[in-house]
């Protein structure tokens, strides 16, 4: 009995892994013997927009970074369409949290976008005229064409976020992973970013974003992953984004999280 059930599970599992552009199994990450993410299984649905939601310190960013191998997990496996993610990095574009780069670095906006095309040109290749035009068009999609020659430190927070989204666009990936893309940006930027993300979905690409504003989850996203060190719930917003699951993820902090979200959006 046990044997049969297991083999059915195994078949279904193999199917899930093959069809998911981002499947995480048993991921545990710990800083100094305190797990930031513990034994998390996630199966992201292809062609959908998924929000990763949870309180501060729930391990949302850590989950993304560990899944991408930027930080080393204690255990766990991550696959893209059934293949180890390390071999499929060229199909992934990652937009880190804004604070993680040196804003004083001597690069212009357009130089940053062109970094997104590195994989296309390769080590020795140089950017062609068409490549440069493509970089400009990516900048156009986020409404930043006029800023191409600015040094990146001279932009506002929202503008910087748009530049990093444009760099991801230039990567022409199948899976877009964004870490708090709406944190600290102005309303115009938030609108511009969500428009671009929805257009990516319309093109059949998969979008996963760490998100902190509970009020906009149903409006922006199809699916949700509720996280608080462990996975609390995962699935379509209608079934997974429930009062009960939110209570489990946020505990006593739910009221505060709501208030903050209301303050942000209102």
């Amino acid at each position, binding site marked *: 009995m046990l044997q049969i059930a297991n083999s059915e599970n195994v078949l279904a599992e193999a199917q899930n892994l093959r069809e998911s552009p981002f499947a995480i199994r048993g991921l545990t990450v710990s800083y100094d013997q305190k797990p930031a993410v513990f034994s998390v299984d996630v199966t992201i649905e292809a062609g959908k927009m998924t929000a990763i939601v949870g309180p501060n310190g729930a391990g949302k960013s850590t989950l993304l970074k560990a899944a991408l191998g930027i930080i080393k997990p204690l255990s766990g496996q991550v696959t893209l369409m059934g293949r180890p993610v390390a071999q499929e990095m060229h199909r992934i574009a990652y937009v880190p949290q804004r604070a993680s*780069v040196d804003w004083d670095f001597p*690069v212009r906006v357009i130089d940053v976008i062109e*970094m997104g095309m*590195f994989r296309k040109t390769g080590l020795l290749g140089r950017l062609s005229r068409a490549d440069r035009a493509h970089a400009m068009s990516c900048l156009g999609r986020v409404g930043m064409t006029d800023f191409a020659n600015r040094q990146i430190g001279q932009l506002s927070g929202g503008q910087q976020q748009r530049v990093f989204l444009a760099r991801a666009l230039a990567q022409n990936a199948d899976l877009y992973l964004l870490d708090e893309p709406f944190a600290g940006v102005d309303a115009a930027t938030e609108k511009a970013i969500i428009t671009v993300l929805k257009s990516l979905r319309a093109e059949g690409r998969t979008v996963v974003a760490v998100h902190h504003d509970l009020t906009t989850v149903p409006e922006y996203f199809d699916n949700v992953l509720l996280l608080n060190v462990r996975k609390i719930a995962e699935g379509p917003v209608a079934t997974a984004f429930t009062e009960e699951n939110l209570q489990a993820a946020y505990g006593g902090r739910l009221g505060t999280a709501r208030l903050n979200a209301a303050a942000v959006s209102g």
Partner: protein
Amino acid sequence: MSGAEFVPLSLSPLIIGCLAAVACALPGNFLILRRQALIGDAISHVVLPGIVVAFLFAGTISATAMMLGAAAAALLAVAMIEGIRRFGRIEPGAAMGVVFTTMFAGGVLLLELSDTSGVHLDVEHALYGNLESLIWLDATGWASLFDPTALAGLPPELFRIALVLGLIVILLALFWRPLAISTFDEGFAATLGLPVSTISLGLVIISALAAVAAFDAVGSIIVIAMFICPPAAARLMTNRLGMQVAWSVLFALASAVAGFVLAGYGPLWIGGTNSVSAAGMIATVSGVILAVTALAGPERRRVT
């Protein structure tokens, strides 16, 4: 000044000074952008123990043994710094301070305890080199530049530093984009599949090579000064990476030429009779250039 005096006595030290300055300034640009300026400091301090140990093993001062010893010492230093930082959870500045002082102290003691009387190897040489002694005795004037027999008598340090500079230029040209991307945003570079730790280590090895080849001719002081001052001054001139590297080369050359000339002839102009240390003067000039750009460079201010 006549060619008969200038070419044999000044031409080759001048060229060696220029090559060494540029060879250090090029990787220095990336070191300062990575907040690793003091890795340059650490590397130049550990070159001495590397050379001493290589000498103790090889028994002679051969260029190859010296290069290998110094490069190995630089790698060991970086590994120790990284180990103390990561496993001991100590901030990088303090970890560097522990490692390079210890290795330098070890080098000095080894040198004092071993019999190196027959060879030209001592602490003073390690600190400020002896650029002035790298003369070209086979030269008789400008015509010697076209005389194969005379050219064969050029100091071997010249060929060594030229070779290393050539290597650095080629590697920089080849790996410019990966280096630039991983310096700017290491996390992103990792998601591109770039081997970020290898790139970081590669930069250290290149810096160590530059330090060893330059050290041989000009001593650690110039090495540290050229790793840091020209790139730092260049950063205050422009907001573009390519331009910054170009400015740093210009500043390095200006420091080397002006420093050498001032050291050799400056005292004579003000009535003195002896020249002063060229290595020290080159470092001093690079500091003056940095001071000027810090006061008036167009991009000297931080934006944020």
